[in-house]
């Protein structure tokens, strides 16, 4: 058992535990904080996979911006915990059954059908450096320039949409 595998196993235990904590904690604020921890763990996985730029984007965008927005809205609405309702009582057991089936199917297909495509080698110093970043930037602003620009329009539309949806009507049109 090498050190990479030990790091992977410990981190994946943390990732699964925080995901389950997000799912089962009754207070939505705790859920959001568990999810922040999960995102940071996934960012460390990205570093292990040799994707430092994606890891940093993950931390700034997901763990930073998106989760802060979530916490703001949770506290704004006072939606830390909702009163349990009795509509659709059969839904929860059915949901658990279906998701267990989904997990078993995915793992079964993965380990029975797929061929082994390769091993993830831990990145050496050259991967987490400026060179790989430059390669990725050339790819992003060369081959993928059009999707990049479309993304900026998408973000603009989302911003305008959020403002239009939440403005108060009193101020007139």
């Amino acid at each position, binding site marked *: 058992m090498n050190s990479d595998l030990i790091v992977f196993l410990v981190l994946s235990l943390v990732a699964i535990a925080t995901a389950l904590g997000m799912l089962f904690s009754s207070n939505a604020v705790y859920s959001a904080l568990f999810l922040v921890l999960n995102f940071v763990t996934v960012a460390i996985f990205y570093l292990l996979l040799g994707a430092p730029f994606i890891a940093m984007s993950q931390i700034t965008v997901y763990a930073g911006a998106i989760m802060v927005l979530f916490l703001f*809205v949770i506290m704004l609405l006072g939606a830390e915990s909702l009163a349990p309702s009795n509509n659709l009582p059969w839904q929860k057991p059915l949901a658990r059954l279906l998701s267990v089936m989904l997990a078993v199917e995915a793992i079964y297909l993965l380990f029975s059908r797929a061929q082994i495509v390769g091993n993830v080698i831990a990145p050496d110093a050259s991967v987490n450096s400026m060179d790989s970043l430059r390669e990725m930037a050339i790819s992003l602003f060369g081959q993928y320039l059009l999707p990049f620009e479309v*993304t900026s329009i998408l973000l603009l539309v989302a911003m305008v949409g959020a403002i239009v949806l939440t403005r108060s009507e009193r101020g007139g049109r």
Partner: protein
Amino acid sequence: MVPVDYYIALSAILFTIGALGVLSRRNPLIIFMSIELMLNAANLAFVAFASIYQTFSGQIFVFFVIAVAAAEVAVGLALIVEIFKTRRNINIDEMNSLKG
């Protein structure tokens, strides 16, 4: 070194936990967080395969997915705030009519 299968298995497990959250929780904010978890699981699989095949396309796709997730969260949370302002309640079970 770690077999890439382990990363894909972890991604599948995280995706399943997210799907369970969407199916079983009643708080729309938790449902949103579960969707984010599922997006993250898919991103992890993308980066794992990008690392195996030594290409940047997977990482760039993950970058776009992160941007789309940010846009989706902004609009979705605005919708939830608007529903709360209209109905004073955001329990998913109560939202069973299209009329405001």
